[in-house]
C-alpha cells in the first residue's frame, strides 16, 4: 500500500473513533461540538507520557482516556443545565478554551507544536479503532445502552421509570471524551507531530459530520461516515476544484433523503437477512 493511501486509511480510523465519541454522547440526546478538544487532550497527554515519561503507548492511551473521561464528566456537570443548541454552543466554548490553552502552553511546544513520538502503523490505529467499534456495538445490546436510549427518547419519562438520567448523561459524556482522547493519542503517534490547530472546531465538526452522514442511530454508521468523509473527496479528485462542492452537495442530498444517515437499524437488518438467506 502506498504511504499516501496508508495515511488516508489511518486518518479514517482516527475519524471513526472521533465519530464514535460523538455517537456515544448523541445516544443520550446531547450534541457535543467540542470533541476535538478531548482529542487534543488525549494527543498531548499521551505524547507527554510516551516522550517525556517513556511510558509504553498502550498505557499512555489508557491513562489519557481516563483523564479525558474525568474532564468530560466535569464538563458535563454544568452542561447538564443546557439542552440542544445551547449545549452544543457550550461545548464549542470549551473546545476553544482547550485549544488556546495548548497554544499558550510552552511546556508542550505552544504554537510551535510538539514532536518526538514513536511512529505507529496504520494497523495499530485500526486495531484500536476496530476494537472500540466492536466494544460500542456490544454496548448497544447492553442494559446501559437501553438507559441511554430512554434518556434520548424522553428524559422525563426515563426519570419516572427509575433511571438516574443525570448519571446516564454524565457517563455518556465521560465515555465519549475517553474515546476522543484515544483518537487523539493515535493521531499524535501516527503523525508524530501535533499542534493546537489539529484539534480545532473543524475537527469537532468532522466528527459530527461522520456520524450524521454514516448513520446516527447505529455504531457502524460512524464507520461508513468516516470512510466516506476521508475517501469520497479522493474519489472525486478528477473533478479537481469542484470536488469539495460536489461532496457538499452529496452530503445535503443524503440528509434530504435519509435524515437518520446512510445506515440504520432496518438497513442493517435487511442486509443481514439477505446474507443469511443467500
Amino acid at each position, binding site marked *: 500500500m502506498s504511504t499516501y493511501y496508508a495515511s488516508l486509511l489511518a486518518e479514517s480510523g482516527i475519524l471513526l473513533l472521533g465519530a464514535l465519541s460523538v455517537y456515544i454522547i448523541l445516544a443520550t440526546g446531547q450534541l457535543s461540538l467540542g470533541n476535538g478538544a478531548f482529542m487534543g487532550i488525549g494527543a498531548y497527554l499521551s505524547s507527554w507520557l510516551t516522550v517525556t515519561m517513556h511510558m509504553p503507548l498502550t498505557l499512555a492511551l489508557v491513562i489519557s482516556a481516563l483523564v479525558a473521561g474525568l474532564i468530560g464528566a466535569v464538563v458535563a456537570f454544568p452542561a447538564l443545565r443546557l439542552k440542544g443548541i445551547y449545549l452544543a454552543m457550550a461545548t464549542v466554548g470549551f473546545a476553544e478554551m482547550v485549544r488556546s490553552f495548548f497554544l499558550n502552553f510552552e511546556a508542550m511546544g505552544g504554537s510551535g507544536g510538539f514532536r518526538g513520538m514513536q511512529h505507529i502503523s496504520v494497523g495499530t490505529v485500526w486495531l484500536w479503532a476496530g476494537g472500540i467499534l466492536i466494544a460500542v456495538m*456490544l*454496548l448497544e*445490546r*447492553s*442494559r*446501559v445502552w*437501553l*438507559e441511554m*436510549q*430512554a434518556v*434520548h*427518547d*424522553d428524559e*422525563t*419519562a*426515563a*426519570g*419516572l*421509570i*427509575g*433511571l*438516574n*438520567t443525570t*448519571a446516564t448523561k454524565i457517563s455518556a459524556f465521560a465515555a465519549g471524551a475517553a474515546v476522543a482522547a484515544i483518537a487523539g493519542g493515535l493521531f499524535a503517534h501516527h503523525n508524530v507531530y501535533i499542534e493546537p490547530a489539529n484539534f480545532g472546531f473543524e475537527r469537532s465538526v468532522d466528527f459530527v459530520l461522520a456520524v450524521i452522514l454514516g448513520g446516527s*442511530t447505529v455504531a457502524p454508521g460512524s464507520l461508513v461516515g468516516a470512510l466516506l468523509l476521508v475517501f469520497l473527496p479522493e474519489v472525486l479528485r478528477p473533478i479537481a476544484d469542484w470536488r469539495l462542492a460536489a461532496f457538499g452537495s452529496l452530503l445535503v442530498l443524503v440528509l434530504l433523503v435519509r435524515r437518520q444517515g446512510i445506515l440504520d437499524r432496518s438497513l442493517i437488518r435487511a442486509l443481514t437477512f439477505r446474507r443469511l438467506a443467500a
Partner: protein
Amino acid sequence: MSHALLQLTGVTKTFGGIHALSGMACEVPEGKIVGVIGPNGAGKTTLFNTITGAYRADGGSVTLKGVDITQWPSHRIVREGIARTFQNIRLFGSMTVWEHLLVAQPHNEASWRRLLPVAWVNPAAQARADEVMDFFGLTAFRDRPAKSLPYGIQRKVEMARAVTARPKLLLLDEPVAGMNHDEAEEIRTLMLRLRDTGLSILLIEHDMNFVMRLCDYLYVLDFGVPIAEGTPEQVRADPVVLDAYLGKDD
C-alpha cells in the same frame, strides 16, 4: 382503613400563587385499588407528579411504608417501589416492547455487567420481561417498535413497563382514557388480577362507571382539596360530591 402503604399528610403544591394541592391527605392501603376523581384542574395529575417526585411538594409529607420520600428524586422513589403511567402515553420512540420491559427493571447500579449484552448476562431480566409480556398479552408484539402499535396496546405496554419493576404501588393516570368499552374492560380485569398479586393501585380516572366498579376506596378532589372520601357507594351518595362533581353530569 388498614395499614397504609402510601400516606400523604397536608401536602401542598402551589404554582405562582395558585394552590394546585392544598393540605392534601390520603392513603393507599396494601393490596387495594384506590381512585382519585375530580373535575379537570382539580389537582389530580399534580398529586401524581408530587408523589413521584416530578414536582417537589411545598409542604406536608409523603411516606411509603413509613419512609418519608417527600423530597426524594424521581428515580429513587421508583426504586423504593412506586411506578406510574402517564395521562398522555410516554413510550420511548426508538424501543421495542421487549426493550421497554428490560429497561424499566431495577438493577444494581455498580455492576459492570450492565455494560455487557443483556442476552449474555441477564437471564433473570429476560425471564421477568417474558413473564410480564405474557401477563399483559403482549408477547405477539415483542419486537415491534412500541410507538407503532395501536393506542390500546400502547396503554398496555406502558402499564407493563411500570409493573416490570415489581413496584409496591402502581399509579395509573387515566388508564382507560380514549379506549372503547371492551378495551376498558380488559384493563379492568388486568388491574384486578394485579391487585390479586398483592399490588396496590392508585388511579386517576374520568370514567365514573369504571371507577365505581373497580375501586375499593375513593377520594374526590376539587381545587386541590379533598372534599369527600369513602367506598364507591358512600361517595356516590355524598351530597357534597353530587354538588361539586357528579351532580353536574346528571
